[in-house]
């Protein structure tokens, strides 16, 4: 399935997202691409009522999750009952339209 591309350092194994040209842990420059998917743990979240220009809605839920392979990422949360630590299933959907272009990103269902 479609998802983000994260990176694992070939030297020390550090997992990173988004991309860096030097490893955040050891400064090495070779990385293996990884595609996190499946179950993820909710680390924190917020319900946003005042959204930026171009997003015509209220109450969008945003969160940061940790996938089983250690990748941490932000995404839309599609769940009514929210609790830090809960398990969510990851998905991929249009998260914003910017300049008429549909932009895809992570979403999570609980």
């Amino acid at each position, binding site marked *: 399935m479609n998802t983000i591309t994260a990176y694992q350092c070939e030297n020390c194994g550090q997992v990173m997202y988004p991309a860096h040209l030097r490893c955040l842990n050891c400064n090495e420059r070779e990385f293996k691409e990884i595609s996190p998917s499946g179950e993820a743990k909710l680390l924190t979240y*917020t319900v946003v009522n005042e959204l930026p220009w171009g997003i015509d809605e209220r109450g969008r839920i945003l969160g940061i999750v940790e996938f089983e392979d250690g990748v941490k990422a932000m995404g839309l949360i599609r769940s009514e009952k929210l609790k830090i630590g809960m398990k969510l299933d990851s998905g991929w959907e249009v998260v914003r339209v910017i300049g008429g272009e549909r932009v895809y990103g992570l979403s999570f269902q609980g």
Partner: protein
Amino acid sequence: MRPVVVSGVGMIPFERRDEDSLVDMLAMAGLKAMDDAGAGDRPVGAVYVGNMASGLFNHQVSVASALVDRLNLFPAAADRIENGPASGGSAIKNGFLAVASGFYDAVLVVGGEKMREVIGPKATDIVACMTHPQAEYIYGVTLPAMAGMFTHLYMEKYGVTRKHLAHVSIKNQDNGLLNPYAHIQMKITMEGILTHPQAHINNPVVAEPLHLYDCCPVSDGAAAVLLTSLEMANELKRPDVQIVGIGQATDTHTLQERADPTDLKAVTIASQQAFGMAGIQPEDIHVAELHDAFTILEIAESEHAGFFPKGQGAKAVARGETRIGGKLPINPSGGLKARGHPVGATGVAQIVELVWQLRGEAGERQVKDAVNGFSLNFGGFGNNVLAFVLRREA
């Protein structure tokens, strides 16, 4: 390095200023700082403008050159310095380095932003441009949303409650009532924003768990300082307040890549650098201006800067220790919460307030016998932070 004196300070009231352009505001504040120093027709070596986004907010760039033109400061060097919400702090730091190195004897530093030229959701979008374009911005994240996610973690880890946050906003709006330059001049109460069953009507959710009164307003404004060598300051008879400590540190762009997102490492490192350079400890500070864009940040910064142990900052504000007259007055100006936060102006406005406090010119909000002052300017969501120590010389 040679000593650097803040010889002149000036600012214009922060508010919605429909009549003035950004350059008008920068010029008014700059002129006030030069007049405060009694600089007259003395040349200024350089003009540094702290500004985040004049291109996006006002459709104008090269505003430092425009400011020199407006003030007839030719042929002064002119640069606009951008570091998000810490643009003002970065401009001050660069002005300090330029004078401390001996390259210039006088540098005019002006911070300013005109945000109300665009409607609220546009301003929110422009400010959100500082987030990571692919990993954050596309989701519609805002700075209040970043702060909301941070607040949930801080509440869970340290037992901070919405009542603790409300204590910060009530204190800072009380202080703002004593500051004629503050944007929000309004008394608020615990009942009105939190405990009354209808309080949510006054104080709706912006980004859970943060409500309206946890967030700074969107403001227009400018503030300025004239930094000079000690020699020139003595000639101007304005040698009283020096910048004696500066720190600046960075952290990861995204919140999620920090091993512990509640740990504001850049605040800790920048503060330690500033205290180390000044040769003093946090307990030697008499007045502090912290970057309370959100109430949680005043609490978290007061801990990470070393004024309180982790988890104790919320209790200190609830006990009144950070009020004017308390053990360590924080944000006597009203902070970003009440003074307002025209992004590029804030770091400079913090220094202006400290100079007024250290000179004894702060009027009704004067902190008694203040000798050492501290300010913290928080860029991004803690990914680029500046700290300053100012001292009144005997």
